[in-house]
């Protein structure tokens, strides 16, 4: 058997094994929302919210929205009504920020989107500090902008 045929055999064997493994472990080969699927496996205790629900909650003033990105990114543009908790500062002194949180409302954290993990890191700390009713807007600022929801800029 020549080298290319051999490698093709190995390739097909691997694809078959992958399909079998995905069936056995109940892993969808083509999930609808990959980000939510993968992050819900990594952080099983965290709840997620989509842009439509977030927009409705913001309209009713039922949500305290945290932007976990750095200050310079926040200034360039953020979701209307979001408060900036830059992760680098928040990490070193979370108590300085926690006092600002309105615990009567639901807390939603977001970052850039596209597999940025700052929102998860911030919410992990908030959870350790005893805050409940936390949610992550996984689409982040990229998704919000793309869907033309209101944004705010501070120049």
């Amino acid at each position, binding site marked *: 058997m020549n080298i*290319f045929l051999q*490698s093709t055999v*190995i390739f097909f064997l691997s694809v078959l094994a992958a399909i079998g493994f*995905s069936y056995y472990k109940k892993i969808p*080969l*083509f999930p609808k929302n990959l980000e939510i699927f*993968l992050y819900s496996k*990594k952080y099983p205790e965290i709840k997620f919210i989509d842009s439509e629900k977030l927009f409705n909650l913001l309209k009713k003033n039922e949500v305290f929205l945290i932007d976990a990105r750095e200050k310079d990114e926040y200034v360039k543009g953020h979701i209307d009504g979001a408060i900036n908790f830059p992760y680098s500062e928040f990490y070193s002194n979370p108590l300085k920020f926690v006092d600002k949180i309105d615990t009567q409302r639901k807390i939603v954290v977001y970052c850039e989107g596209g597999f940025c993990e700052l929102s998860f890191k911030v919410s992990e700390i908030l959870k350790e500090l005893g805050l409940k009713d936390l949610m992550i807007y996984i689409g982040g600022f990229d998704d919000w902008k793309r869907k033309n929801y209101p944004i705010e800029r501070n120049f």
Partner: protein
Amino acid sequence: MTGKERIIPLREIFKKHNLYLLILLEIFLGLLFVYSGYIKLKNIHEFALTVAKYGILPSYFINLFSLTVPFLELFSGIFLIFGILKKGAYLVLIKLIFIFTLAITYAFVSGRIFECGCFEIFGKEEEIGIYSIFRNLIIFLLLLYGIRFRKK
């Protein structure tokens, strides 16, 4: 004895030593890739997340790719150790390590540092860096060395 007669046995000894070296190299590379494939399968969601963070593949293919790669490593590693479809196993691993190195270099150059999804050593994932690129290049050269001798 003529000079010519002395050279022939020396060459034979050299060939024999090279063969032992090659077998040792194949066992080493085989075990390395079996381990790498096993670790990826053990933490398949983490690996898929790492693949997604590279931002190279469309999200639609990430799960299929992340599930196939560990089996490619696992089968090629086993075949390399046991001498089955050996040349094909070399070719698969060369292609894989080439793609991995390009992806790591791309992420490193674009300044996105996260776990590289390569090997987990003592339970710790390594971050993308010069070290991971350099390590991959060495593995790539070892694979090229192996396939060169197996092709003869």
